[in-house]
């Protein structure tokens, strides 16, 4: 509602193609969402509810069929270079070392692209520093397949952050990791965010993850893909892993779980 919203969805609908549009079959519907500068939001919901579609809309990889999207006050008309993305699969390039993988965005995005060759040493320095903060110092010259799954995911997050984006989009980035590694990476993400204050849009189906990390959690329903619940998480920051064992935390997770459970039931009756 505030005019200075960083990400502003105004009544956004998306159908994947004209045929589906003619049938009024939308992947996501009626999305109204305002994200403040530096806010960490999480989107939870059952699989196939259009969470990833929402990400594509935010980054400008897809254009809405109806409505409009403003990011940083500007209407989104194409791929948004101020964003970095990371996915469940780390999708690092196996023929590049960890360092070169992290440097990849700088070879593509301006203004780094044009002076990449001259300033390579400086950029490599920067990448090393970033790798160091996520605990990958000393692994610069290892290849991705020499790293564990958690390490690959850290490198993938570094790759998303190397060009200092204003917005970080994460699509179930910790989904494939074991519980301990996942919690470790929550803390790394929390620290990076606390330090740099970029916007984060985290898509996940782990409710504890969303509550631990986010300022605001949105619950999405499946077909139609809509935002049904907005929940501000007012747990104090900085948050420590210990907080996940407090009753306040559990209550919030429980409440969100209730919303999703209710949705699943109505979904089931519709299906029958």
């Amino acid at each position: 509602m505030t005019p200075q919203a960083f990400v502003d969805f105004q009544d956004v609908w998306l159908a994947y193609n004209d045929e589906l549009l003619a049938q009024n079959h939308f992947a996501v519907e009626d999305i109204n969402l305002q994200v403040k500068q530096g806010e960490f939001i999480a989107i939870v919901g059952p699989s196939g509810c259009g969470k990833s579609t929402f990400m594509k809309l935010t980054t400008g990889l897809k254009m809405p069929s109806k409505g409009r999207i403003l990011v940083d006050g500007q209407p989104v008309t194409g791929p948004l270079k101020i964003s970095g993305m990371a996915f469940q699969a780390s999708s690092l390039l196996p023929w590049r070392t960890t360092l070169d993988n992290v440097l990849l965005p700088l070879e593509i995005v301006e203004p780094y692209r044009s002076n990449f060759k001259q300033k390579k040493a400086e950029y490599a320095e920067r990448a090393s520093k970033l790798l160091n903060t996520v605990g990958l110092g000393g692994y610069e010259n290892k290849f991705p397949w020499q790293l564990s799954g958690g390490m690959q995911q850290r490198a993938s997050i570094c790759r998303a952050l190397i060009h200092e984006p204003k917005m970080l989009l994460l699509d179930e980035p910790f989904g494939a990791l074991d519980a301990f590694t996942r919690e470790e990476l929550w803390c790394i993400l929390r620290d990076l965010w606390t330090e740099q204050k970029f916007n984060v849009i985290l898509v996940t189906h782990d409710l504890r993850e969303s509550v631990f990390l986010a300022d605001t959690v949105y619950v999405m329903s499946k077909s139609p893909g809509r935002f049904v619940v907005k929940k501000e998480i007012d747990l104090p920051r900085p948050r420590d892993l210990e907080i996940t064992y407090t009753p306040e935390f559990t209550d919030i997770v429980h409440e969100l779980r209730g919303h999703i459970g209710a949705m699943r039931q109505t979904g089931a009756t519709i299906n029958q």
Partner: protein
Amino acid sequence: MKQKTLERWAPWALLVLSILIWEVLCRAFNVSEFVFPSPSRIAQQTIEFKEVIAGHAWRTFWVTMVGFGIAIVVGVLLGFVIGSSRLAYAAVYPLMTAFNALPKAAFVPILVVWFGIGIGPAILTAFLISFFPIMVNIATGLATLEPELEDVLRVLGAKRWDVLIKVGLPRSMPYFYGSLKVAITLAFVGTTVSEMTASNEGIGYLLISAGSAMQMGLAFSGLVVVGAMAMIMYELFSAIEKHTTGWAHRGSQGE
């Protein structure tokens, strides 16, 4: 360690064993050398005609290499076009498959009409038979990019070209080297087949003329020489592949 040494020497052991059995059978049943010469007879004739064979072998070798070189250029370019555009893929692929199904030996008479007897038909037959696997493999490597990775790059403003150069090409390199190994052996087949009817030089010509002169030992040594050349080139590309795209073979390095 022991297992590895064993694997390394296994093909040689098998080769020696086969030659021994062949030799023994030829002697035991007293097979006429005009029907099926024994290995010792082949070796004897190889040494006797070594200069002639070497001349023909050199001719076959460089003709094959020229044809193969053209096949790499054309195969990579076509594969690049097909792999980077869905429309081109849809348009070209079915036609190429149909073309590949034609026996390349059938082209030789036509090529003779166009280029006369000599290196022309041989080079072109080697090219025609060997560019297809190269093209298909480059195209496959390019066309099977992970969509997430493409999103990561596109959001940064990467053009299609950037994605192809930074990701597509390196990714298709293992496929490319794999195809070279197949293609080089095919190229030798192409050259030899063409030389059999459309040349006065080369191993193919040697096979035909030795056969018609009932020099069976010589004909067999021609076969051995082609086989050896193809195998050496195969091993060469195999070694290049391992050195340049080690990341794709990490499972088999066993270290």
